[in-house]
């Protein structure tokens, strides 16, 4: 008998080959990303795309020397169906809507008209070059030139945004660059398909051209409408997912992807569809889903988007080394030249035309940033790589695209920061400014920004107001579960996950609350000598540096939202909001000893988020055993957001009177205990331990009770807003250290 003996140890590589290799590639790219941030200085000077391509080059070099071929992963299907959607969804989802819509005209202008200008300009110039016999590229037709031109005009200003952030460019420019990048992709892909289709035709008639132009608009608008539709459907679906929180992120992703695929089915702009879908649904979805789902959605979108982009850059590096290039000095160098030239020209001309329509016109520095910051990126490469094979000079095009990308990413990416800094520095001469100047200037800038926000934007207000009315009256009722009259501050708190602020508060021990520092300063000041300090010039320079690094930037939110490689940074927002709470707390604390005054004082500071209006019903309730009303608020909120109650006990609502009663009558301890327990029965379970602890303190003397009671009085504020059941209302430092059994 011939038996094949089973080996004890087998290797079955072919079975797992494909997933294994994909995983390895992604892992390698992730290691690269980790590696960059180990040494912080690198990422400051060199944009991430540079680093990724370099790593790709190295790996490509290794593979080439081993005579390996890179995995044939980057096919047309793989790119368009799997790799592009996450990138675009990432951009669309994190687009800050308000500034975006306010600059909508400018964004569209630069994205659509700018890309068209670039493509057509480069295409025609290259065609002219082709006619010159010296370069030997006469066989490239006009259509093919246009195709190539559309590929290399897709701009991806990722590195520019990071640089802009540091140099405090004003918000408008920021959003224009961000929006341009987004719509740029859409326009490029549309043009690409258009020219692809046209290039395949032997004879082009005028009628075809007009048809194609019309098609361009249909595709764009169709994508938008489609995306909006899907956005609303998603929002509507999330209305009903109250009981199945786990699948909420999944629904979001599935719907977005579905929008993309079906748009592809109808050959309308899938990028527009998915972007508009993300924009539309974000607003409603973030109200409907739980906090955790919200975080999950953001994290996953960011993760998949950045993985996708990383992989593409990585492949760029690898492919550069390993493929066979067709090199043609003239054509490629001229392509590079024209790309830069037309971009610069385009920005100049377009800005001149649109500046009269803007009352914050783009100055030269802005224009320079826009033009010089036009790095080509992932999309260009993928489009080139996936050109159909019937294009005769496909390899030439690929090589050309790679050259343009590498040049812009490396040279422009690395030099833009110093150049912008140079231009900036020439305008302001910091050493002549006094500290007074800096502080007052910043204060005034914040004031102006605040007043602008207060007035609402002038011109857009009309449309936005109409839309908001429509939104509040109709859309919100349909699409949002448990529709409450929206308090934007509450939404803000939810967004910033301030429920988890307890951990943050614990970390930043001591520095948070303004009051202790002020009080301690008070005391110090009495003891401090009145003699004037001498300030050395080095001290002053240090102060200048301190101020420039630590002063809050104007309208930080927009800037923090558009960083492509990391999640939005909410630290500043948290700090500001936490401080407002502590200032409110201070006022409340002072007021609570006096009873009713607290309510009035809190009105003055209004930083307490009020879900309901701060009406006069509020003050009397606080002092009354209004357990029913307050209780129902707690229960309501605990049903709505059960997982939001952190393990660190959310303080129960505790009317002041009860505790005072407890403190005053020591004798009837048992009776009071009963009452306390009765009152607390309805509160959240985690507080039972606390009540138990409190009662154990009672026999220890009335003076202790008073102090406990007093502490408790101001700690356990009756909260009139069910949504604000977060530990922020506690003052951690001043709490008597009670051992919680958690």
């Amino acid at each position, binding site marked *: 008998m011939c038996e094949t003996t089973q080996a004890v140890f087998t290797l079955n590589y072919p079975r797992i080959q494909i997933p294994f290799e994909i995983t390895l590639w992604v892992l390698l790219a992730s290691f690269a990303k980790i590696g960059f941030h180990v040494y912080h200085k690198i990422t400051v000077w060199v944009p991430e795309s540079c680093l990724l391509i370099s790593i790709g080059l190295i790996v490509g070099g290794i593979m080439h020397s081993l005579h390996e071929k890179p995995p044939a992963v980057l096919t047309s299907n793989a790119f368009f169906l799997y790799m592009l959607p996450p990138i675009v969804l990432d951009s669309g989802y994190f687009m800050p809507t308000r500034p975006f819509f*306010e600059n909508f*005209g400018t964004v569209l202008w630069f994205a659509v008209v700018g890309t068209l200008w670039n493509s057509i300009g480069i295409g025609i110039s290259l065609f002219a070059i082709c006619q010159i016999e010296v370069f030997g590229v006469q066989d490239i037709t006009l259509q093919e030139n246009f195709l190539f031109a559309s590929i290399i005009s897709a701009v991806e200003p990722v590195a520019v945004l990071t640089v802009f952030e540091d140099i405090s460019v004003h918000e408008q420019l920021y959003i224009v660059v961000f929006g341009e990048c987004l719509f740029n992709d859409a326009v490029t892909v549309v043009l690409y398909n258009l020219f692809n289709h046209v290039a395949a035709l032997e004879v082009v008639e005028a009628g075809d051209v007009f048809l194609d132009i019309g098609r361009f608009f249909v595709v764009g608008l169709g994508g938008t409408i489609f995306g909006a539709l899907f956005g609303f459907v998603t929002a509507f679906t999330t209305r009903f997912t109250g009981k199945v929180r786990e699948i909420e992120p999944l629904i979001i992703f599935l719907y977005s992807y579905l929008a993309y695929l079906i748009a592809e089915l109808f050959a309308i702009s899938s990028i527009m569809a998915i972007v508009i879908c993300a924009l539309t649904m974000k607003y409603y979805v973030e109200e409907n889903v739980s906090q955790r789902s919200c975080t999950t959605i953001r994290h996953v979108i960011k993760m998949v988007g950045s993985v996708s982009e990383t992989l593409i850059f990585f492949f760029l590096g690898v492919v550069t080394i390993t493929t066979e290039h067709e090199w043609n000095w003239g054509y490629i160098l001229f392509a590079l030249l024209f790309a830069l030239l037309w971009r610069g020209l385009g920005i100049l001309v377009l800005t001149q035309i649109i500046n009269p*329509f*803007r*009352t*914050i016109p783009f100055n030269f520095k802005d224009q320079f940033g826009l033009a010089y910051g036009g790095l080509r990126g992932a999309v260009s490469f993928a489009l080139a790589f996936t050109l159909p094979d019937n294009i005769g000079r496909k390899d030439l095009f690929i090589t050309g695209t790679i050259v343009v990308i590498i040049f812009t990413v490396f040279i422009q990416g690395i030099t833009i920061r110093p150049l912008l800094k140079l231009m900036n520095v020439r305008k302001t001469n910091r050493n002549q*400014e*006094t500290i*007074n*100047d800096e*502080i*007052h200037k910043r*204060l*005034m*800038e*914040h*004031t*102006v920004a*605040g*007043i602008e*926000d*207060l*007035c*609402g934007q*002038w*011109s*857009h*207000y009309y*449309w936005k*107001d109409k839309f908001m009315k429509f939104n509040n009256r109709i859309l919100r009722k349909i699409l949002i579960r448990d529709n409450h009259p929206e308090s*934007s501050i509450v939404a*803000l708190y939810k967004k910033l996950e301030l429920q988890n602020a307890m951990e943050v508060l614990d970390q930043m021990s001591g*520095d948070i609350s303004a009051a202790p520092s*002020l009080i*301690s300063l*008070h005391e110090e*000041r009495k003891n401090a000598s009145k003699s*004037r*300090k001498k*300030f050395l010039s080095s*001290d*002053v320079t240090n*102060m200048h540096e*301190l*101020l420039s690094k630590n*002063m*809050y930037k104007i*309208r930080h*939110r927009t800037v923090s939202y558009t960083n492509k490689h990391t999640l939005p940074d909410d630290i*500043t927002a948290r*700090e500001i909001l936490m*401080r407002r709470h502590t*200032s409110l707390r201070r006022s409340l604390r002072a007021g609570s000893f006096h009873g009713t005054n607290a309510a009035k004082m809190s*009105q*003055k500071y*209004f*930083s307490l988020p*009020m879900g309901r*209006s*701060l009406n006069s019903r509020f003050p009397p309730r606080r002092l009354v055993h209004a357990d029913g009303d307050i209780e129902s608020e707690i229960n309501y909120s605990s049903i709505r957001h059960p997982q939001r109650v952190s393990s660190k006990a959310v303080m129960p609502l505790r009317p002041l009177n009860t505790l005072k009663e407890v403190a005053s009558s020591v004798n009837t301890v048992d009776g009071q205990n009963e009452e306390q327990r009765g009152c607390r029965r309805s509160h959240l379970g985690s507080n039972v331990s606390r009540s138990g602890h409190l009662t154990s303190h009672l026999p220890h003397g009335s003076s202790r009770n008073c102090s406990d009671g007093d502490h408790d009085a101001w700690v356990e504020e009756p909260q009139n807003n069910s949504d604000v059941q977060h530990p922020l209302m506690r003052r951690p430092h001043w709490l008597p250290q009670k051992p919680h059994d958690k």
Partner: protein
Amino acid sequence: MGSTNSTLLKIPNVEVLMQETGFSPAHIIRLHDRFKALDKEGRGHLCPHDFGAIKELAMNPIGDRIIGAFFSPGKETVDFHTFVKILAHFRPVDKDRPKEPNSPEPINSRSNKLKFAFQLYDQDKDGKISRDELLQVLRAMLGMQVTDEQLESIADRTIQEADLDRDDTISFEEFRKACKHKRFTMFRFCIRPGERKLMLTLCHWSSELQDQHEL
């Protein structure tokens, strides 16, 4: 423009308002619309929490001071006239204003703007910026990494630079002198409306063109 006149008539004392503040009719109407939108319950006046509902203002480090500037001490509400008058501080400075000795200074004059800014510091309205008030503002505007000692030295330096009569506080005159630095231009302490949309509604278009003259 016909509709604008009817809206104007609904606002009481609108001519006096326009004269005092220098806003054009179109601006007044826009401000009125905004006022109405903020006044969600239609009471005809605003209270602090109406302002508090503006999300971006909540994110402003000195948001509560700005809002506080609208409410004179003791008052809990703001009516439309006060609203417009305060906002008039932020109109661009009229460069060619004839200097009439008898007429009161316009609200958007340089010195009134400075007074407004001064009030943002001086919360107890005693006419001086004390060291504590300065510290509060600094604390509001700086990130949490700044230690108390650093804050104190910055405050000390600020007072030292500006305080000429050595009373450890900054009076309004000292403030004004400190801001007289040529780099410091009060021309910037004004609102510049954002991008004009390419598609404006017709009734606003003509007023926009008119405003371009004034702004």
